[in-house]
C-alpha cells in the first residue's frame, strides 16, 4: 500500500462530506424521513440534466438550483398524492422519485450528445478523480468543508426548533414554532447537501452518510446533542476506514473469496458506505450482547 497526497485528500473530502451529511441526517431520522435522502438523490437527476441542457456547461449553479427545486418538488407533490389519494407516505414518495429518476436517466441520455455526463459517475461518484486538482488544496475540499460548516451552523441556531418539530410537531406548532417551515428547511438543506456532495462523491455515499451515522449514534446516546456528536465521529471513522480498506485489505479479501488475482483497488465511496454499515452492525451486535450479559456480569462481580 502506497499512501500519497491524493489519498489524504480523498479521506479529507470523504470525511467532510460524510460529516456534512450526518448533521441533517440525524433530524431526518428523528422525523421518520430516512428514505427522503434516497428519494432526493434519485429525484435531483432530472434537475441536474435540465441544468446541463439549459446552461450547456458543468457550471454548478444551475445544477444546484435545478436539484434543490427537484427536491422541493418531490416533497410537495408526494404530500399532495399522500393527502389526496390517501396513499401512505412511503408509496407516494416512491411514485415521485421513481418517475423523476426515470425522466432524469432519459434526459441525461439526450444531454449526453451535448455535454459530457455519465449517469454512472453521478450515481457512484468518482472521489478518486475529483481530488485531482492543480491547486494546493483541491476545490472540492473547500466545497465540502463549507457545506459542513453551513449545516453545523444551521443545526446550532435552530437546534431547539428542530428538536421540538421532530419530537412533538403539535406542541411545536402550539408554541409558535412553524414546524412546517422547519420541515421544508430540512428538505432544502438535505437537497443542497446532496447536490454538493453528488458532484464529488456520488449519491451512494450521501444516502449512506445521511442515515447510517445517525442510526449508529442512536445506539450510543439518548440525547439529541449526544447523537449529533457521535454521528460526526462515526462519519469520520467510516470515511477513514473506508478508504483504508478500499486500497488495501478489501481487494485482498475479495480476491481470496473469489479466487482471483486480477482485482485492483475498490471504489472509496462505496467502501466508505460499506464501512459505515460495518460499524453500525458491529455496534448493534455489541449493544445487544451488552444488554444480555452486563446484568449477570455485574451481579457476579458485586
Amino acid at each position, binding site marked *: 500500500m502506497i499512501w500519497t497526497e491524493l489519498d489524504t485528500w480523498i479521506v479529507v473530502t470523504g470525511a467532510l462530506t460524510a460529516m456534512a451529511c450526518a448533521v441533517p441526517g440525524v433530524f431526518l431520522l428523528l422525523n*421518520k*424521513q*430516512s*428514505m427522503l*435522502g*434516497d428519494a432526493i438523490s434519485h429525484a435531483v437527476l432530472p434537475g441536474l440534466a435540465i441544468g446541463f441542457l439549459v446552461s450547456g456547461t458543468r457550471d454548478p449553479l444551475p445544477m444546484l438550483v435545478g436539484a434543490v427545486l427537484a427536491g422541493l418538488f418531490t416533497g410537495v407533490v408526494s404530500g399532495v398524492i399522500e393527502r*389526496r*389519494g*390517501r*396513499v*401512505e407516505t*412511503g*408509496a*407516494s414518495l*416512491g*411514485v415521485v422519485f*421513481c*418517475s423523476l*429518476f*426515470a*425522466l432524469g*436517466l*432519459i434526459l441525461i*441520455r439526450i444531454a449526453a450528445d451535448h455535454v459530457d455526463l455519465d*449517469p454512472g459517475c453521478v450515481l*457512484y461518484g468518482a472521489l478518486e478523480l475529483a481530488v485531482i486538482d492543480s491547486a494546493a488544496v483541491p476545490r472540492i475540499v473547500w466545497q465540502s468543508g463549507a457545506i459542513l460548516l453551513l449545516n453545523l451552523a444551521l443545526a446550532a441556531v435552530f437546534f431547539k426548533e428542530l428538536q421540538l418539530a421532530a419530537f412533538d410537531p403539535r406542541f411545536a406548532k402550539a408554541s409558535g414554532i412553524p414546524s412546517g417551515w422547519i420541515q421544508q428547511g430540512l428538505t432544502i438543506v438535505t437537497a443542497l447537501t446532496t447536490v454538493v456532495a453528488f458532484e464529488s462523491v*456520488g449519491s*451512494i455515499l450521501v*444516502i*449512506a452518510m*445521511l*442515515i*447510517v451515522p445517525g*442510526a449508529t449514534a442512536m*445506539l450510543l446516546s439518548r440525547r439529541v446533542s449526544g447523537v449529533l456528536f457521535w454521528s460526526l465521529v462515526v462519519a469520520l471513522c467510516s470515511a477513514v476506514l473506508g478508504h483504508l480498506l*478500499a486500497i488495501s485489505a*478489501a481487494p485482498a479479501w*475479495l480476491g481470496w*473469496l*473469489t*479466487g*482471483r488475482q*486480477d*482485482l*485492483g*483497488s*475498490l*471504489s472509496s*465511496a*462505496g*467502501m466508505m*458506505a*460499506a464501512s*459505515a*454499515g460495518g460499524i*453500525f*452492525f458491529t455496534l*448493534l451486535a455489541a*449493544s*445487544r450482547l451488552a444488554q444480555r450479559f452486563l446484568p449477570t456480569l455485574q451481579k457476579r462481580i458485586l
Partner: protein
Amino acid sequence: MMESFWRVLLLQDHNTRVVMAGACLFGAAAGLAGTFLLLRKRSLLGDTLGHATLPGITLAFLLAETFGISPRSFLWLALGATISGVAGMGAVLLIRKTSRLKDDAALAIVLSVFFGAGIAMLSAIQQLPGGQAAGLERLIYGNPASMTSGDAWFVLLASLLVAGVCGFLFKEFTLLCFDEAYALTAGWPVRPLDALLMGLVVLVTIVGLQTVGILLVVALLVIPPAAARFWSDDLRAMALVAATAGALSSLVGVVASALLPGLPTGALIVLSAALFFGVSLLIGKKRGLVIRLLLEREASRRLRREHVLRAIFECAEDGQPVVTLEEVLAKRPWKKNELRSEIGQLADDGLLTTEPSGTSFQLNGRGDSEARRLVRNHRLWEIYLLTHADVAPARVDRDADLIEHVLDQRLVDELEDLLDEKARERLVPGNPEKKLP
C-alpha cells in the same frame, strides 16, 4: 418510421415477441404483488430489495469463473441477486427487532450499505480488462432487449407463479393486509403468509432486474398500485387495475424504446407508468382530483340551498309567511348576490313564489314541505346531539332524508317531546324570580 412501428406492434420479430411477453408479464406480476405491498405499507421495501441485490450480482459475477459458469448467464447472476436480496431483507428484520430504530431507518441503512458494498465490488469489475462490466450495467439500468429466450422463459414462469399464488391466496393476503391481528387470533398462519408475500416480492424484483434494472424495479411495484388507488376502493378491482397498468406500461415502454433507439428501456417503462399515474391522479373514477372537485362543489351547492330554505322557513315561522330578502340576509353571513341567485334558482325549481315586487317571496306547497323536513331533521339532530352526544355521536347522519331512517321511532318521539319543551321555553321565558326545582 411507420413501417418500423407496425413491425414492432405486430410482433413480427421473434425477439420483439419474447421481450414484449416477458416485460408485460413482469409488469402484471409486479402490479399484483405491489398492491399487497402497498396495503401493507411496505412499498419502499422494493427499493431496498432492488439495491440490496447488487453485492450478490457482483459476487456471482466474480465467482462465475471459479465455478466454470459464464459470467453473462442471467440465471447465475439472478441466484446471487436472490441470496443477497434475502440477506438484505433479513438485515431489515434484524434491525427492526433488535434496536429502537424505525422501519424507514432500517430500510435506508440496508439499502445504502448493501448498495455501497455492491458499488465497491463493481468498481473492481469495471477495472478488469475486456469491458466485462457491460454485462452488469444492463442489470443496473435494465435492458429487456438483451433477454435471451431462456431468460424470457424464466421471466414468464416466475411471473405466472407470482400471479398464480396471488390469485390463489387472494383472500388470505387480503386479510393479512387489513387485519393482521384478527388473522393471528383466528389461527391463520400469519408468519408463513407474510414470508410468502415477501418471497413473491423478491421474485418480482429478480425478474425485474433485466427489464427495468436494479434502480427502477421498485417503480413497477409502487406506481401501478398507487395509480389503481384512484380508480377503486375494492381490492379485487384495484389489483386488476394495477396488474393491467403494469402490463400496459411495460408494453408502451418497450414499443417506445423500439421506436426511439438509444433511450433506456427501463426508464421509458417507468415513465409510461408515471404517465398512467398522472392520468389516474387527475381523472380516476374514485379519488381523482376532477371527480373530487365536482363532488365537493355539488356538496357545497346542496348545503347552501338547504341553508337558504331553512332560513326562509325560520323567518316565516317568526312572522309573516311573506319574507323579504333583508330578513333572510340577516340570518347568516351571506353575500347578497349569492343569496339572490340561490333564491332565483329556488323559484325556478318551483319551491318559491316571488311577489310581483321581486324583493319578497313565499314558500309554496312543495317548498314548504321540503323546508319543513329539513328544519325538523336539523332541530331533532341538534337535540339528539345535546342529549345523546356522550353515547353515540357517530350515528348522526344529517344527510339522511328523515331522521327516522337512522334512529328508531321511540327515540324520535322522545326528541320531539324535548323539542316541544324547548319551544315553549323560548316562547315564554321562565320567571327569573322563581327558583328552579
